[in-house]
């Protein structure tokens, strides 16, 4: 689908990025030492930190991915919302206060508080880097997706733009300005999503009984592309894909519902018939590929229950392994949040455990409220002609465009700063891991404070450049799907070590190192060998994969725990450390 850049959108977008950078430079002047650069001197007020949690957490996957998935398939995207939010319960009740009590700069600090072992630092540092890079890919892909309609730039330009701006933010400023950027962005995202939801409810539904025509893209052997039978382009005689998404029948045969209440919204949709779009691809003998998008009227009641999308179709299957795939993902989402390095480092920016606790509660309130809105925004996009059949990630911004150009500009700019914020948090977490964990565990040279900050900044530039390349390479992959995997790796590698350290005195340093490494390697290995990766990355048939289902969590998280317990029991003779901290 073609997207016209709009001057207003560009102006608002540049204004917001400019303001963000201005704040970064202004606040960054003060952060010269390690404590300032990595942990904002522990001086961030708890309320600000709480909203910044929302800013960190509500990444491109939440805003673009979940809304898009709901818009395309209905309720299934909301399953991600539920899982992502539930993870905060683990963060608050189990991890928040001990993290604050035990650590200083990084997650590895907390793991290592009892043992002072370079091995733990190394293992935890490597897993921080692995999770962060995995999590960075979908963010960068999201950035590329956003700039296409907003600025009319190609995908790679968006990725490079985000990468460059984020490197500037992280290098000049560190945790203080990253936190404030997150705060502003988190607050604006929730506020404008509320505005959008109110507008959806005010507008209500309308029915378009006439079924739209199917749309086709033909890629011919010589490389030319035909859209709906015409050469691709905007002039008369050329073709473009049309935006889709409509209701074909409303209850009672009415044409318009008028303004709806928040519950009426669902009850009306339950009894309506919605036009969804299915995609099929046929390879012709002449080397051409025809992709057909065909309308598929679907009862609303089908859309409002789990299992309508390909990702969660296993729910409706009779095969037990398909159901396991779903259970595995929901477990990984539940356990993953409290293991994400860029979330965990935020506990070091507040002054004490009470502040850590309070800011988590504020975070849960903001994030939970936002996730309720995702269902309205996604279904709103599904029913208001705001879908690009080729790209589910664009649903939320295009929904805004269907309301007004101004709102579209603001929402797009917020979505872009969303990516900026999350990416800067991730790069900062990686830089911290390189400086504090990797470097200090492999070298004995004592670094001065200024040297550490300099090394962290260099690491930030390197990680940023790697992220740019990955963002361009992986542009075909689905954003929220990739994030699900990042959660699996985080939960498998980090959670067993963290939880057992807190609750079992028999934990040894060898046990922790083994659990982190086994969890990380097994979950990464499982993902690389899964059917979904076979199909999406290697282009091999899904059935050839070695593992029985795609989501590793349900196997690799328990595996991490078992490894830790077994290795700890075997090496238990060396247990002479202080009593367990909790």
């Amino acid at each position, binding site marked *: 689908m073609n997207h016209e850049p709009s001057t207003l959108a560009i102006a608002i977008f540049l204004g917001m990025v400019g303001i963000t950078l201005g704040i970064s430079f202004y606040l960054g002047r003060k952060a010269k*030492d*390690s*404590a*300032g650069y990595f*942990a904002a001197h522990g001086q961030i007020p708890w309320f600000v930190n709480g909203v910044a949690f929302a800013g960190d957490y509500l990444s491109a996957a939440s805003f673009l991915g979940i809304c898009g998935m709901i818009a395309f398939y209905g*309720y299934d995207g*909301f*399953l991600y*919302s*539920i899982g992502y*939010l*539930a993870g*905060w*319960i*683990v963060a*608050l*009740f*189990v991890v928040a*206060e*001990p993290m604050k*009590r*035990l650590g*200083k700069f990084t997650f590895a*600090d907390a793991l290592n*508080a009892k043992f002072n072992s370079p091995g733990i630092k190394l293992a935890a540092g490597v897993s921080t880097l692995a999770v962060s890079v995995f999590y960075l890919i979908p963010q960068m892909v999201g950035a590329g997706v956003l700039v296409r309609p907003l600025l009319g730039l190609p995908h790679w330009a968006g990725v490079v733009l985000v990468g460059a701006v984020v490197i500037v933010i992280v290098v000049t400023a560190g945790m203080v300005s990253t936190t404030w950027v997150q705060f502003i962005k988190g607050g604006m995202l929730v506020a404008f999503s509320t505005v959008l939801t109110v507008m959806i409810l005010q507008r209500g539904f309308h029915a378009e009984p006439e079924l739209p025509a199917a749309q086709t893209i033909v890629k011919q052997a010589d490389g030319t592309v035909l859209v709906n039978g015409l050469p691709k382009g905007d002039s008369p005689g050329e073709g473009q894909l049309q935006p889709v998404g409509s209701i074909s029948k409303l209850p009672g045969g009415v044409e318009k519902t008028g303004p709806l209440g928040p*519950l009426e919204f*669902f*009850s009306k949709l*339950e*009894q309506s018939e919605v036009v969804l779009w299915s995609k099929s691809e046929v390879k012709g003998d002449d080397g051409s590929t025809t992709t057909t998008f065909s309308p598929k009227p679907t009862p609303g*009641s089908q859309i*409002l*229950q*789990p*299992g309508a999308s390909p990702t969660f179709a296993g*729910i*409706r299957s009779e095969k037990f392994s398909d*159901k396991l795939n*779903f*259970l595995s993902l*929901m477990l990984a989402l539940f356990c993953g949040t409290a293991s994400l390095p860029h979330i965990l480092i935020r506990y070091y920016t507040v*002054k*004490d*455990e*009470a502040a850590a*606790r*309070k800011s*988590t*509660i504020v975070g*849960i*309130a903001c994030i*939970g409220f936002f*996730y*309720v809105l995702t*269902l309205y925004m996604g279904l709103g996009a599904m029913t208001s002609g705001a879908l690009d059949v080729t790209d589910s990630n664009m649903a939320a911004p295009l929904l805004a465009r269907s309301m007004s150009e101004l709102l579209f500009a603001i929402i797009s700019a917020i979505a872009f700063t969303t990516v900026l914020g999350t990416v800067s948090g991730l790069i900062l977490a990686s830089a911290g891991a390189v400086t504090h964990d990797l470097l200090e565990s492999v070298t004995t040279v004592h670094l001065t*404070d*200024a040297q550490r900050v300099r090394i962290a900044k260099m690491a930030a530039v390197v990680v940023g450049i790697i992220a740019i390349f990955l963002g361009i390479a992986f542009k075909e992959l689905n954003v929220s799907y990739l994030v699900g995997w990042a959660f699996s790796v985080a939960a498998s590698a980090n959670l067993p070590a963290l939880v057992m350290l*807190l609750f079992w005195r028999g934990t040894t340093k060898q046990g922790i190192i083994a659990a982190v490494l086994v969890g990380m390697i097994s979950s990464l290995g499982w993902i690389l060998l899964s059917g979904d990766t076979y199909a999406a990355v290697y282009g091999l048939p899904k059935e050839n994969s070695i593992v029985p289902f795609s989501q590793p969590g349900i196997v690799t998280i328990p595996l991490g725990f078992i490894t830790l317990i077994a290795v700890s029991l075997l090496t238990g003779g060396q247990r002479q450390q202080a009593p367990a*901290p*909790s």
Partner: protein
Amino acid sequence: MANRNARIGLILFVVYLAFYSGFVLLAAFSPATMARTPWAGVNLAIWYGFALIAAALILALVYGYLCRIEVPSEPVRPAPGARDTASASKGGHQ
């Protein structure tokens, strides 16, 4: 006090875990139940989903409230934390 907070946290954690597991298992093994519309024409999947989000916030507030009673003005904890703070500020003056 850290112990007491951890115990409260664990209890609330188990409560939420049970509620969440109920949702996941129902979605996986009894989709027909999720499709029912028990109240206001809105189906159970949506009610349960919203209830999970509301429950997370309510339990979080309960936890915050229970932890607050015992520790009205909690000072920075000694033990490992103190060492960390000291070394951090030492680092800061180099």
